[in-house]
């Protein structure tokens, strides 16, 4: 699935990109609902994001499996992050619609989502997301969404703004 597509061959992460992951993660931590669900950004590339979330008792459904709503939140966040990581440097994005297919939810462990912004055209981004059970590797869910994209007046992207803020802070 190209989990390491954005890393060097020896497994290290390029310095610029390490900065991007760091500032994007600190932004995600400041989103109250993402923080409540303990979402974590584990990789970020061009139009590409990988996130993880623990399967905690308070996130479960009636059958003791990860609730679809918690999964929806993670997939939505991961997809939006892939959009702002697009090379056209969007400043922000909002979900227009999201279609989710639920295959088999885990009862414990962690889930990982991989989002790829497949196309961005006329301020609309099209994103596909896959969620897998990190313990078994089983496919948990897949989703497709369209996202409205916003650009800054000076062409400054979301990640640029975050890096600048970090520099000032």
């Amino acid at each position, binding site marked *: 699935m190209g989990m390491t597509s954005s890393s060097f061959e020896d497994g290290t992460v390029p310095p610029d990109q390490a900065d991007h992951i760091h500032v994007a993660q600190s932004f995600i931590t400041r*989103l*109250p609902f993402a923080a409540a669900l303990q979402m974590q950004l584990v990789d970020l590339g061009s139009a590409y994001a990988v996130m993880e979330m623990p399967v905690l008792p308070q996130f*479960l459904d009636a059958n003791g499996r990860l609730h679809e709503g918690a999964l929806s939140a993670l997939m939505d966040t991961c997809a939006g992050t892939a959009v702002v990581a697009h090379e056209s440097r969007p400043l922000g994005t909002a979900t227009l619609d*999201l279609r989710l297919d639920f295959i088999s939810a885990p009862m414990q462990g962690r889930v990982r989502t991989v989002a790829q912004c497949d196309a961005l055209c006329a301020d609309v981004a099209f994103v596909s997301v896959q969620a897998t059970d990190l313990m078994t590797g089983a496919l948990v869910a897949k989703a497709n969404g369209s996202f409205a994209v916003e650009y800054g007046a000076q062409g400054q992207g979301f990640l640029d703004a975050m890096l600048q803020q970090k520099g000032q802070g």
Partner: protein
Amino acid sequence: MEFQPPDLPFARFLGITWFTDGSDFCAKLPFCPMLIGNPLLPALHGGVSATLLQITAQAALVESGNGSASQPPRLIDFTVDYLRRGQPEDSYAKARITRAGRRFASVSVTMWQADPDTPIAAAHGHFALVVGS
């Protein structure tokens, strides 16, 4: 109220409650700061809306005799249209069962805040009524 909605840890985590509006069965999600997705606007997280819509659709099926509180119908797929930004205020949702057959059901559900005629999200989903172990 006789009807028992499914007891979901995640619904309790968010604080979802139930009420009836005439003959309609509705869900209420009281606002709390944890539900914010974007603190700059601020706006509710899209995952919060998706969850409220999913739980309302599932409870409506149980209320109409499909599955039980302990064995509710299983969600197969779900499509959410985000119509307006979710404001930092209380949210409500109501479902309409399009068809419930022997094995599968199709449900539409809408979510609103201050004005029931101004939906902020609408969704459509499919459920499996025969729940395997």
